[in-house]
Structure formats: C-alpha cells, structure tokens
C-alpha cells in the first residue's frame, strides 16, 4: 500500500460549493479506483507567490491516499490536466517519514510546524538529561502555596 499526496490549486473565481465539488470529484474518482483516502485537507484561500494565468490567489487542496497499484496515478493526472478549474497540481509519493509527519501534524504533535518540530525534539533531548535534577526541585514549591492564602484573611478583619 503506497501512500501518495496530491496537492492542487483551484481557481478562486468559482463559487464555494463548486470548489468543494471539484475536490469531491477527485476524491470520489480515487475511491472508485480502489484508493483509500487518508485525508482531504483544504488549506483554503491563499495568496500565490506569483500570478498563475491572471490569478493572484487560489484555494489549495491536499488529498492523501494510499493505493495498491500505481497505474491509477496517470489517469488522475490526466483528469487534473484536463480540468480547467484546476490551476496547478503536484502528485508526490510519501515515504514512511512523510506519512509519519502528516499523521503527527494531524493529531497536533507538531503545533506550529516551523519551530515546534525542532522544539519538540529539543524538549525530549533535554528531558532525558533533566530528570535527575528535577527530583530535587519538586518538593521546594510545595510549601509556597500554603503561605499565600493566610494573609488575605487577616486583612479583611
């Protein structure tokens, strides 16, 4: 079961539901071909870095699917090429790290993708080293909360 990811940009001048139906046609087509859709991710309206046939913004879609035999892909790309609502598309095969990355991203492991990915690894890296001194620090804060509630009562009387 190989995992693929097709990202495409839909023309923004279309109406909302037509945009949804465009994405739907491709996920249905894949399902008909026997693919298992892992996730349809609508990244929404984004400004393009450069204008593509007189448009400066587009709606990004990313469909992740896994299929057994790869002969489905040329058919999918042919359809994408023919469809004039699609401004641009890119099909990519995902290796196991790519699959793991997308799953992590979905269940929020990678919060802010840029720094969190590095911070997340750094935390684990530090946690491994820090758990020895942490044992001493834990008892210290315990007495502090007891002290604070006492003074406010005395002020009220």
């Amino acid at each position, binding site marked *: 079961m190989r995992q693929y990811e097709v*990202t495409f940009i839909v023309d923004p001048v279309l109406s909302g539901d037509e945009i949804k139906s465009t994405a739907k046609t491709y996920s249905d087509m894949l399902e008909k071909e026997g693919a298992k859709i892992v996730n349809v991710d609508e990244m929404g309206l984004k400004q393009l870095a450069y204008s*593509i046939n007189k448009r400066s913004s587009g709606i990004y879609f990313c469909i992740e699917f896994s299929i057994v035999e790869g002969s489905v892909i040329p058919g999918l790309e042919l359809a994408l090429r023919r469809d004039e609502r699609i401004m641009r598309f*890119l099909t990519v095969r995902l290796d196991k790290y790519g699959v*793991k*990355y997308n799953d992590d991203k979905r269940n929020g492991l990678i919060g802010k993708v*840029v720094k969190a990915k*590095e911070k997340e690894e750094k935390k684990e*890296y530090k946690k491994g080293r820090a758990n020895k001194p942490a044992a001493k620090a834990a008892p210290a804060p315990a007495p502090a909360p007891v002290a604070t509630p006492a003074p406010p009562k005395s002020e009220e009387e």
Partner: protein
Amino acid sequence: MASRDDIKFLSNPNIGSRAKKYCRFKKFGIKHIDYKDPDFLMQFINAQGKVLPRRITGNSLKYQKRVAIAIKRARHLAFLPYVTDLLK
C-alpha cells in the same frame, strides 16, 4: 614569571572563532521536509528567493538535497516565488 591568568590580554582570545555549524536535521532528528509549508523553507532561501548554499545553511548533503527539492516543489505550487527581491 607571570602565570597565565595574571597576564591581561588586550583582546578576547576566542574572538576569531565562530560557533560550530551543525546540520539541524540531524541534530533535532527532523526526518521529513514538508514542501507545503513555506515558513520553514524560508530559512533556506535568500532575499531573492534563491536556495542558500550548504556552507551557509550548514546542512548535511543529504538534507540539503531534500531541502532543494522541497523548495522547487513549493515554487511549482506557488508557495514560494521563483525570483523576487526583498523577500524577507
């Protein structure tokens, strides 16, 4: 004879040395570079949108190639411009 710490040096002895560059992908264990998020890729291109060389980014060869591929894919999908000025 004056011992080493009595001597007052005119300038800081390690002023010339530069921090050791490292490959951030190997150090933090990042395995996959996503071509869909331009903010992360922005760190590897210069103000004109060109891919920065390895001696600047400090990446290892393996991950520099993957970064370059991801940047080209991002350009194809208009996440990143092919050429621009004052990008940052």
